[in-house]
């Protein structure tokens, strides 16, 4: 197989631009999904039965349907109910909603795995449920939650490539645009793989660093 190095040279800066968009989407979706994931996960642990059922139903729906369909649903269904989002924001919303569901499970599991005696001790000194979560359970659950949460962020970052189907000009879409003009699929997909790999690697290094900065119990 012969590699067309001219195309590679042309593609590198174009793909870098796409990478920037991918990175932006991943960052915003990452922050949103962590916030929403914690909110959902903690609601699932709370006292309000209706809220717990709603969260369970939501998580069940997200896990039971393909992300691609969820992206289309958000992109095509929202305008029907009067919500107009451009393709980038529709993509961010879809990714965040999707990732948050998985994170909610991680948060629920992480907090739920703290030994029962901790909750009882906190209750015995008169703490309320929100206080127990904030001062006793979360500080203990946070560090073990970092690796699974990282996995979900990595999955989400890779899933940004699906947004190419709603014309978000992110990394994959940028590559496809080059392919459609020059018809050099091998070179471009190889480059795409390398770009994604570098992106994901730096993300996992970041996560390991975060983990080491957290207090060991």
């Amino acid at each position: 197989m012969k590699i067309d190095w001219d195309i590679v040279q042309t593609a590198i800066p174009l793909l870098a631009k796409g990478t920037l968009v991918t990175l932006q989407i991943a960052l915003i979706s990452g922050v949103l999904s962590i916030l929403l994931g914690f909110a959902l996960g903690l609601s699932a642990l709370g006292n309000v039965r209706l809220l717990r059922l709603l969260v369970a139903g939501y998580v069940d729906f997200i896990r039971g349907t393909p992300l691609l369909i969820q992206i289309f649903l958000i992109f095509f269904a929202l305008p029907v109910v009067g919500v107009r989002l451009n393709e980038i924001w529709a993509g961010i919303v879809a990714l965040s909603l999707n990732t948050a569901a998985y994170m909610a499970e991680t948060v629920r599991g992480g907090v739920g795995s703290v030994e029962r005696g901790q909750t009882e001790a906190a209750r015995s000194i008169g703490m309320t449920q929100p206080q127990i979560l904030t001062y006793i359970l979360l500080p203990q659950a946070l560090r073990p939650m970092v690796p699974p949460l990282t996995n979900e962020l990595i999955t989400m970052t890779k899933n940004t490539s699906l947004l190419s189907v709603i014309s978000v000009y992110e990394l994959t879409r940028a590559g496809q645009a080059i392919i459609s003009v020059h018809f050099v699929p091998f070179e471009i997909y190889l480059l795409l793989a390398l770009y994604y790999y570098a992106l994901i690697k730096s993300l996992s290094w970041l996560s390991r660093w975060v983990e080491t900065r957290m207090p060991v119990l």
Partner: protein
Amino acid sequence: MADPRVPTLRVERLQKSYGSKIVLRDVDLEVMRSETVAIIGPSGSGKTTLLRCINYLESPTSGMVWIDGQPMGRVPRGDGTLVPSGERVLARQRRAIGFVFQRFNLFPHLSALDNVAIGLHKVHGLSKTAARERAADELRKVFLNEHLDKRPYQLSGGQQQRVAIARAIASDPTIILFDEPTSALDPELVREVLDVIRILAASGRTLVIVTHEMRFAREVAHRVIFMDEGSIVEQGPPGELFGAPREPRTQRFLEHFVQSAGARSP
């Protein structure tokens, strides 16, 4: 100050069952101010469940618990009838009760000092500085002044349990419940914990202690209660209950104890 004729703790027809299994049957109990009560009995007799129902770590199936005449787990409605209280009210009611667990249950992410201070700060509204000063005082009382900044895992079992006691008494609760406070300890560490409890009893605190340390119960308690199969079988001053138990079940339990576990008492 509360009326001295009103019992500090009153338990009234307390029932607890898990499904069809009855763990507590119509338990009635009164503990007066500054009294130290020891509860003994075989495992599975309901001693621990009784303690846990008193501060509503377990909800009783029926019956009432009163602390200084105030109902636990209930709030009065407009017409004076009592309805079950929510978690928030319960959290407030629990402030009147200190609880010491068999397995200490210290917060592993906090220093000894902060284990005691966190309740004072977050629950009782002391400033962080005031809470820590007070916590240091409480830890001094249990002879841990040199270990304030250590995490629980850096402390021995006996030291951990003393931190837990300091945490339980720091907010000056009306009554302190001990759930087998020395059962998880190595034998050589039992004494330091019992000594601390002894000091509390002597200082006029109101204590209810579930224990297997018969000699300790005999020496420290004003009254000893023998429980079996979810009921209080017999109670009385330690001299009487240990010296001349009336009920055959109490006699059997104490005989068995002298043979098998008596050697453990310090």
